[in-house]
């Protein structure tokens, strides 16, 4: 049997994604094609990407190839190394699950007036774009693939374009994606001018002064940070991600944000290749603010998909806290701890892809069977959709960083890195880390509160509306898609040593050293620094929990069927009804009150003409008022001046173009 090399597998993944896009063009005639061929092809592309990524991680080493495309003097090169391999795994596994799930999900669109070729086609292009970004070996192909990813996802965000709000969200997304893209392009420009060429190899060899390296760093941080949704540039994200079809939301939040993380790691850790503590302070500060603001805004939402999108902001913040710690320890000469922080960030990257993908698929299943995104209308879904309910619970526990699931492992690793702060020489830097750790701890606790709210309001209790009470189970394929991700959430939580060994090729390639000590004491013990410093027996904890639970249920729950049912306690008044339950807004009210200053809250009572009072509550993002609106006003004011150029006469336009060209030639000459 011939084993395909990882690079060939990666190439076939891209090809399969493109073929699925091509096939879907025909689905305007035959709507079933989308379900029966396009989505399986898409899942297959994900599987191929996963296999390619695993192959690259296991084999190590670097494979390069040149594509017969591009410009004559600048052929497009692709390269598969451990870092690309890791991110191929992230993309592949979520795409596979989304593809399997999509088979059932797109069925809902077959009868509607939506354009099926647009859905299938842009989904395929989106995946191909993401895969190529990760594979690109020069800035040119990187930018082309980046634009392919951004543009195709724009069309997916605008898929339900009959609502004005969705069109607005899509436009905002397009705008922000391009400002970010411009910043990345400029960053590559700085590197290319010192490295003499757009190939990544040339950039790696470039000798940059601290000043220019910092310019490139800031441009990359802004560009990739905008795509990743770091505060204060995040405001587009909770608008854009929720309005896409749910399996696309899973891909955007679970995977596309990770592609931005990939870009940041590639440029800062690999291409620039020097570390300065000043950068780490910026990354830590922005990461901490993102994590905290993300979770606080998420708590205020009652639209399920919007809430999940805000949690992406939070988790990206946690990933950047890990990367910031890595930069800090590497720049101050503590490579062991730096590697630990880097691995923690990587681990959280794949964890977030898994559980956020899972949660968006779960939200999609709820949407599919109830046509409802508003938590205030839900309730009691666990009984109507038991499988989705259980998988969603796994996602909730994972994202709340509770043992024995995967979110806890990456948070544990990040804390372990932070606890090595005593190694630093500078007291100021040392005191920075406890504050970051406090923010991380607060974020974790608030996330748990938020997911108790989500799960308690949506899946437990009683249904708050008629259509939710009549929710039906979702097709098998949708359950399988969620089940795969839920299982992986558990596996990554229970067997961290195995996965850290698997990912070890990445730090060995990027930082030149691995985290071998983490699994040096057997697969039972995760020891990131040394066994006497810290250890976590994840399999033991999980097994003890499971065995004790079984034993408890067996010993005491023998009479499970004999538990008699009765009415709930009603204080001796009227029996409780569904409307008397705590709502999502009520649940978050204490936290809204304590952190009130951070939100823009519009709350009040108004008298209606029938004499009744109506309470309204609207919590909005402060980033709008503080950053987005002033910039928008500035642009509008500038546009009013520029409008004088617009005469409608094409000759004058040509004249302006020529003049611009001449000025540019004069500057560059």
């Amino acid at each position: 049997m011939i084993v395909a090399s990882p690079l060939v597998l990666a190439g076939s993944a891209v090809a399969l994604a493109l073929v699925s896009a091509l096939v879907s063009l025909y689905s305007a005639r035959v709507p079933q094609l989308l379900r029966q061929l396009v989505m399986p092809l898409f899942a297959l592309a994900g599987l191929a990407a996963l296999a390619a990524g695993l192959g690259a991680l296991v084999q190590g080493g670097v494979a390069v190839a040149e594509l017969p495309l591009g410009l004559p003097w600048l052929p497009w090169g692709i390269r598969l190394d451990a870092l690309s391999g890791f991110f191929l795994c992230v993309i592949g596994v979520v795409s596979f699950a989304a593809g399997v799930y999509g088979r059932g999900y797109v069925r809902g669109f077959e009868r509607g007036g939506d354009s099926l070729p647009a859905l299938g086609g842009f989904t395929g292009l989106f995946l191909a774009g993401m895969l190529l970004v990760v594979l690109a070996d020069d800035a040119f192909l990187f930018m082309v693939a980046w634009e392919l990813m951004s543009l195709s996802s724009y069309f997916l965000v605008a898929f339900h374009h009959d609502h004005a709000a969705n069109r607005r969200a899509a436009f905002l997304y397009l705008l922000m994606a391009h400002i970010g893209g411009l910043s990345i392009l400029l960053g590559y420009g700085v590197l290319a001018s010192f490295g003499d060429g757009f190939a990544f190899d040339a950039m790696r060899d470039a000798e940059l002064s601290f000043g220019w390296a910092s310019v490139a760093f800031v441009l990359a941080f802004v560009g990739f940070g905008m795509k990743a949704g770091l505060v204060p540039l995040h405001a587009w994200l909770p608008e854009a991600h929720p309005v896409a079809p749910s399996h696309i939301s899973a891909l955007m939040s679970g995977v596309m944000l990770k592609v931005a993380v990939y870009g940041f790691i590639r440029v800062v850790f690999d291409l620039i290749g020097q570390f300065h503590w000043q950068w780490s302070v910026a990354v830590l500060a922005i990461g901490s603010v993102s994590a905290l603001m993300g979770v606080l805004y998420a708590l205020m939402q009652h639209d399920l998909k919007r809430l999940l999108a805000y949690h992406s902001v939070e988790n990206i913040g946690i990933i950047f806290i890990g990367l910031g710690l890595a930069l800090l320890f590497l720049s101050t000469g503590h490579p062991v701890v730096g590697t630990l922080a880097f691995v923690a960030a990587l681990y959280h990257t794949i964890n977030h892809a898994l559980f956020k993908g899972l949660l968006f698929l779960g939200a999609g299943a709820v949407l599919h069977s109830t046509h409802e995104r508003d938590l205030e209308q839900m309730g009691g879904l666990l009984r109507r959709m038991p499988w989705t309910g259980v998988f969603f619970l796994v996602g909730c526990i994972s994202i709340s960083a509770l043992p024995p699931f995967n979110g806890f492992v990456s948070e544990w690793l990040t804390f372990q890195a932070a606890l090595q702060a005593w190694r630093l020489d500078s007291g100021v830097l040392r005191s920075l880390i406890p504050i970051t750790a406090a923010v991380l701890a607060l974020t974790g606790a608030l996330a748990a509160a938020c997911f108790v709210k989500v799960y308690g309001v949506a899946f437990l209790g009683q249904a708050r509306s008629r259509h939710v009470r009549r929710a039906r189970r979702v097709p098998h394929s949708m359950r399988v898609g969620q089940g795969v991700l839920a299982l992986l959430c558990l596996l990554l939580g229970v067997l961290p040593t195995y996965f850290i060994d698997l990912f070890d090729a990445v730090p060995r390639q990027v930082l030149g050293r691995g985290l071998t000590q983490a699994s040096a004491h057997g697969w039972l013990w995760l020891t990131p620094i040394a066994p006497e410093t810290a250890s976590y027996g994840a399999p033991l904890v999980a097994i003890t929990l499971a065995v004790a639970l079984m034993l408890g249920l067996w010993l005491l729950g023998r009479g499970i069927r004999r538990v008699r049912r009765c009415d709930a306690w009603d204080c001796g008044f009227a029996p409780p009804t569904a409307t008397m339950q705590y709502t999502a807004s009520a649940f978050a009210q204490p936290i809204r009150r304590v952190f009130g200053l951070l939100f823009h809250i519009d709350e009040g009572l108004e008298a209606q003409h029938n004499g009744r009072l109506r309470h309204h509550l609207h919590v909005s993002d402060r980033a709008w008022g503080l950053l987005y609106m002033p910039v928008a006003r500035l642009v509008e004011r500038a546009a009013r001046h520029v409008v004088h150029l617009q005469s409608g006469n094409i000759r004058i336009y040509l004249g302006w173009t020529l003049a611009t060209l001449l000025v540019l030639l004069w500057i560059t000459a």
Partner: protein
Amino acid sequence: MSQAGWGLAVAQALLYVALAPLLAGWIRKVKASLQNRRGPSVLQPYRDLRKLFAKEARMAHTASLVFRAAPYVVFIATWLAAAAIPLVTTKLPTAAMADVIVIVGLLALARFFLALAGMDVGTAFGGMGASREMFVSALAEPAMLMAVFTLAMTAHSTNLASVVDYQLLGDNILRPSYMFALAGLVLVAVAETGRIPVDNPATHLELTMIHEAMILEYSGRHLAIMEWAAQLKLLLYGVLLANVFFPWGIAEGTDPAALGMGLAVVVGKLAVLGAALAVSETVLAKMRLFRAPDFLNLALLLTLLGLLSHVILEVGA
């Protein structure tokens, strides 16, 4: 890790379960005598548990699987967290299995299911309890982590057994960071175990409940397990304060005499702590819910100050 070590760990875990109701009974007894009442026997909690286990468990029509599984999850997660805290001896293999961050994580897991169980029946009280519990813990959990980080960073280990060992071997100097961490952790312990002034374990008024509101719908053995888990949590925090900050007397080996001594000393320390809690509960009144953030912010501030004073003052020195 030797087999004897694991045997000892299991024995110690069982000791936790056995002792937990006793501490609750002791606190009630001291409180009663402070209020000039005779009060029930210190063994009363055991009798209550026995009675509840014998009674029939009933569930609301609207309760789901989560409601039924939650007592077991809550109890086991709390128990596992307790098993990793040195009670009698520091030779504890379970401390390597679950370090102090895992302990906080397991307590959070227990709380997660407790709050979900509160939401499950779909009554106003359960949701109210869950909302308040998560609100209080959202502020208390970071404070707790900061406090234990101060200890962990001093001992260069997050393993609680190592932290205690380090304390015993240490130079016995008074560290300002420890004072801050201790003060913060006391406040956290009061808030997390649902004691006055944050919550009142003896309240019968639904509107002021936090913990009791979440378990309002439980009965029979389910209620017994929930009550026992709450007692276990109280004991866990007591041992954490007693053995980590004042470790003197704890056994450092597996020698039976030292173990017996360790047990006697820890029971004595817990009796003192329990009496202190009873006094504070007698002289203090329960706060309004929205005064609780001030209380918890103070805890967070103290523990953060502790950690900062450690990294700024003590590391370089």
